[in-house]
């Protein structure tokens, strides 16, 4: 039994690892709202009370470490509240957000 299941478990584990590294961006977009990230960082990660998260978000490992032990006024998100896979999904979505336009290209932002 163990022998027969082991390859399947290994496959599953490797799949999970790949999932964690890449994340599911579509799911991440929903989690960003559901987990209340947008409350401080804006609905497109542009920043609010907290800093902007996108484009070019932190790497998954760094982002995960930060949400577990954040600085400033951000409350900690435990694994129970936000599993690693959810952080990875959110990170994947943040990575899809395009660069903000240059301020100089926006007439309203020119003094």
């Amino acid at each position: 039994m163990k022998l027969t299941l082991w390859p399947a478990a290994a496959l599953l584990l490797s799949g999970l690892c790949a999932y964690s590294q890449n994340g599911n961006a579509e799911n991440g977009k929903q989690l960003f709202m559901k987990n209340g990230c947008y409350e401080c960082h804006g609905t497109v990660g542009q920043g609010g009370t907290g800093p902007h998260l996108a484009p070019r978000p932190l790497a998954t490992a760094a982002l995960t470490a930060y949400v577990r032990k954040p600085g400033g006024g951000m409350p900690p998100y435990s694994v129970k509240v936000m599993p690693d896979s959810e952080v990875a999904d959110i990170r994947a979505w943040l990575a899809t957000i395009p660069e903000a336009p240059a301020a100089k290209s926006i007439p309203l932002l020119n003094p």
Partner: protein
Amino acid sequence: MAKSKRVDRRGFIKGAALAATAPIAIAQQVRVAAPANTAEAGGSAADPRITERPGADFMIDVFKSIGFEYCFAMPGSSFAGIHESMINYGGNQAPEYITCCNEESSVAMASGYAKIEGKPVMTCAHGTVGLQHATMAIYDAFCDRVPIYLVLGNTLDAAHRGGEVTWLHSVQDAAAMVREITKWDDTPQSLTHFAESAVRAYKIAMTPPMMPVVLTVDTEMQEQAIPPGESPRIPKLALAAPPQGDTGAVAEAARLLVAAQNPVIVASRAARTPAGLKLLVELAETLQAGVVDQHRRMNFPTRHPLNQTLRAGVSGKPTTGAPVTEADVVLALESSDLYSTVRQARQRNPTLKLISISASDLFLKSNYQDFMRFTDVDLPIAADVEATLPSLIEAVKRLLTDDRKRAFQARGAKLAEGGRLAAEKARADAAYGWDASPISTARLSAELWAQIKNEDWSLLSDTFWIREWPLRLWNFDKHYQYIGGSGSEGIGYMAPATVGAALANKKHGRLSVAIQTDGDLMVANGVLWTAAHHHIPLLTLMHNNRAYHQEVMGIQGLANRHNRGIDRIHIGTKIDNPNIDYAKLAQSMGVRAEGPISDPKELAAALRRGIEVVKRGEPYLIDTVTQPR
């Protein structure tokens, strides 16, 4: 005043009879423009129900002599005598009665007015059920050092309280409820006493630190005839010169500032008037010192090269970032939270010298804790900032040498470059989420600025709730262009304060605008009707994030710390399901309005439509659905 001086009903009847024989002399004394005798006016001196020259007429004379432009009030029977005399005897001019829908709104409107105009209006309220509504706004004004002049009605004589309602609306000591959050109060016992206390109250309110004062006025004294034989006089009002800093202390402050390598000026409620802003510019330029504006008032031009506020951080009050942490001398000007201001700086530099000029050191109350944590100040100067700045500037100039001037110029150039880079970063940050829907607060602010920047504008709402974007992006250089926030960080101040301030701006022809938070408007939105009814021109742009967002973050933080998940944090914090249609709300009260607008591309046209209406002298509201912050 002796009890015998007061008028009871028996005295009133007797007085009415006597008044028929000697009306002219009394009229000359009190300047009452009443008919020479009651018969001429069609009244009957024998009819005790007729009182043609009530005490309230004299009270109106006193209020007129003080110079009140308006009276903000929700009507109430205990001050009905003053109300009636104001609109009839006084002609409803100076003061003009402005109808409010809640006493909290009356006082918050008065706060907004005072911060624009530099002086109070009159406000009236029931001594009981009105004052209880007004209390929150009084606390705001107390914390915000705003002069509020509140007149309470109360029926003092228990024998003359008509029925159940009058008893319920009467109180032994009306002002007791707010005595810990006001500067002075009195309950005059005669018209002479009233006149002296009315003038005294104004003088006290207007002496820094400015605060609310309360005058409790007996209903019978208002409604019954001016007692024969009483010759009330209107005292002369002369405001006290604000207190200047001690000469020696000012000289020492100048010495520290001139010798410092990196002096920083932190201003919170420093500028009470336009002169304050100019003086602060002169001091900063003389020293070539950086200025961090904590924006409880408009203290320093946002685009001045020495303005270092953007480098200090904008996420919360007070701003405490790099310019302060790099300083060796900090000059705090009426800064309300010294401890937080210098805490990080002192951790980095224990030898930091802190100079404070504050009128708040001259007057403190015990119960409410607005005095903040005790802070070690090296040179505390208990004085008014504006009154002290001229002597400080002169003292600094006397110490200048060519060497120091050269050092100052080099420092100024460095600060200017730092300020320029910080402004550039602010614009870059504003570009994030530029086309987002809901609309980003940066986009909202930039769109509004584009439409008003060539007007004589005045932003009347607190920018804290929108990440200070206007203060980061707009060119503020006049004192009336910003009036700070509520003072106590309570909610319900903004909407009425903006209406009161807009009324003050009206005669100056300024374009009043506000970025109004949704939760605040819902506290007492009857103020929209007041704006429509009295034709108060104000463009209100909703920051409608459909939540009490500060509390969303607070509950979210707690839920996380308690490791319970955040799927229920919307309970009690969101203002949705159903969403409030603020345009319809405003329209229902006679305010032209449109929205909700979620697409930022629709904003410019809406703003142009709104400004057109406001320029015609009417209020306009645009509901915009926005990002949380």
